[in-house]
C-alpha cells in the first residue's frame, strides 16, 4: 500500500515539478479579453463558426478577424455579451434582411444572348454585361447563394434568387457578391417591396420584362408618401412602410409584392408565418 502511494505520488510530484518549470519557460501572454470571450462562448467546440474550437474563435474575435454572430449556437445573448466585452456595437435594433429586388425569372424577363459558361453571376456579367436584357435584373446564376453562410438564398427552377426572410441574418454578404446590385438591405418589418431594379424608361422595360416597374406613378398616387419614383423606378419609402400595402393590387405590372402574402412564384420558402407589427391581418 505504502509503495503504491509513494510511487504514484512520486510520479505525480516529478511531473508537477517538471510542468511547473516548463510553464515558466514557455509562458505565453494571452489577451485577458480572449479569456473573457472564451468564457462567454458556449464551449461546445462545435466548429460551426469555422474556427478550430471556441478557443480559436475567441482569438479571432479579439483580433477582429471574426464576427460575433458567427456563433450560431450561442444565439443573440452570446453575441451581445461578446460585443460588450470587445466594445463593439451589438447588432442594430432594427433588424435588416436582404431582398432581391427582381421577379424577372426566365419566363418573364427576356435574354440578351445565349450564355454558355461558368454558372456565376460575376463571371457572366463580364461578358457583354450579362445575358439578361434588363441591366439590373437578377441573373440567377447563384453567386449570392454561394456567398450566403446561412443557406438563406435559393435559386428557383426558373432562375431567380429568392432570400428567406426567416433564415437571413442580415450579414450583407450577398449584397457584396451581386454584380448587378439587385439585392438590398431592408428593414425586416417592411414586407412590401417594389421588386424591380431597372432604371430604363417604361417603354424600354416593357420590351424585356413582364413584371418590371414602368414608372407609371400609380403606386405613388394611390398611397402618397409611401412610394418614391426616381429615375424611372419606384421604391417603397421604408419610413412609411405601413401604408405601402395598399398599392400592391394597383400595380399594373405586378412588380410590387407583399412578402407577408408569399414569396415570388417558384420559391420553395413558405410565406412568413409571423404577423408583422403594424400590418393588419389580411
Amino acid at each position, binding site marked *: 500500500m505504502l509503495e*503504491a502511494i509513494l510511487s504514484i505520488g512520486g510520479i505525480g510530484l516529478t511531473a508537477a515539478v517538471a*510542468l511547473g518549470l516548463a510553464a515558466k519557460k514557455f*509562458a505565453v501572454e494571452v489577451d485577458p479579453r480572449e479569456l473573457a470571450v472564451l468564457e462567454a462562448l458556449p464551449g461546445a*467546440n462545435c466548429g460551426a463558426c469555422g*474556427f478550430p474550437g471556441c478557443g480559436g474563435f475567441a482569438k479571432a474575435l479579439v483580433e477582429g478577424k471574426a464576427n460575433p454572430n458567427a456563433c450560431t449556437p450561442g444565439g443573440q445573448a452570446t453575441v451581445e455579451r461578446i460585443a460588450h466585452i470587445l466594445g463593439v456595437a451589438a447588432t442594430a435594433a432594427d433588424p435588416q434582411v436582404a431582398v432581391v429586388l427582381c421577379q424577372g425569372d426566365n419566363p418573364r424577363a427576356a435574354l440578351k444572348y445565349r450564355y454558355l459558361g461558368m454558372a456565376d453571376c460575376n463571371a457572366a456579367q463580364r461578358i457583354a454585361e450579362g445575358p439578361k436584357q434588363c441591366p439590373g435584373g437578377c441573373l440567377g446564376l447563384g453567386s449570392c447563394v454561394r456567398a450566403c453562410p446561412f443557406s438563406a438564398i435559393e435559386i428557383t427552377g426558373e432562375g431567380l434568387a429568392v432570400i428567406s426572410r426567416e433564415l437571413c441574418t442580415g450579414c450583407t454578404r450577398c449584397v457584396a457578391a451581386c454584380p448587378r446590385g439587385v439585392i438590398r438591405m431592408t428593414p425586416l418589418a417592411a414586407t412590401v417591396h417594389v421588386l424591380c431594379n431597372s432604371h430604363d424608361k417604361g417603354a424600354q422595360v416593357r420590351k424585356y420584362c413582364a413584371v418590371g416597374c414602368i414608372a407609371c406613378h400609380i403606386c405613388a398616387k394611390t398611397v402618397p408618401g409611401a412610394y418614391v419614383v426616381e429615375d424611372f423606378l419606384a421604391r417603397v419609402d421604408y419610413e412609411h412602410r405601413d401604408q405601402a400595402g395598399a398599392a400592391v393590387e394597383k400595380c399594373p405590372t405586378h412588380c410590387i409584392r407583399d412578402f407577408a402574402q408569399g414569396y415570388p412564384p417558384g420559391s420553395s420558402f413558405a410565406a412568413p408565418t409571423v404577423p408583422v407589427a403594424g400590418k393588419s391581418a389580411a
Partner: protein
Amino acid sequence: MTELFLIFISAAFVNNFVLARFLGICPFMGVSKKVETALGMGMAVTFVMTVATVTTWFIQYFILTPFNIEYLQTIAFILVIASLVQLVEMVIQKTSPVLYQSLGIFLPLITTNCAVLGLAVLSIQKGYSFLEAVVFAIGAAAGFTLALVLFAGLRERVELSAVPRAFQGAAIGFVTAGLLALAFMGFAGLVKG
C-alpha cells in the same frame, strides 16, 4: 535488426493504430480537415507516443513490477501521458501559435487519446525490450501520422466534390475512412504479429 524492422512495419502499416486497430479515431476525424494541421498533429502525437512509451516502460519495469503494483498501471500511465501532453501543449503554444490554434481542443485531447495509452499498454503486454518498445512507438506514431495525413489529403479533395447533402461533413468522412481502412487491409499478413 530484422526483428526491429518488422516491429516497425507491423506497427506502422499492418497493424496501423488508426486503420487496423481503430485506436485514436477522435483526432483522426477531428484534425484531418487540412494537411498542414494533420501533419502538426502527427508530430505532436509522435512526440507524445515516443516519450510516453519510454517513460511508461521505465515506470513499469522499475517501479510497478518491483513493487508488485501492476494494478496501478492505467493510473500511472495516464498520469505520465497527461503531463506530457501538458508539456507539448505549452511548447506548441509558445513556438507555433498557428498550429496551436488549428489543433484547438484536439491537442489537450491527446491525453485521452486511446492510441497513446494503447501503445504504452501494448508494448508492455507484448513484453518488448526497451529498444523494441521505442521502435514500436515510433512505428505506431509514423503509422498514425501517415494515416492522418493521407486522410487529410482525401478530405481536402472531397471538400471540392459535389457530395450529396445527406453525406456532407462527417458522414462522407467516415465513408472515406472506411475505404482507406479497406485499402490498408492489403498490408494484412505482410508481417505476422
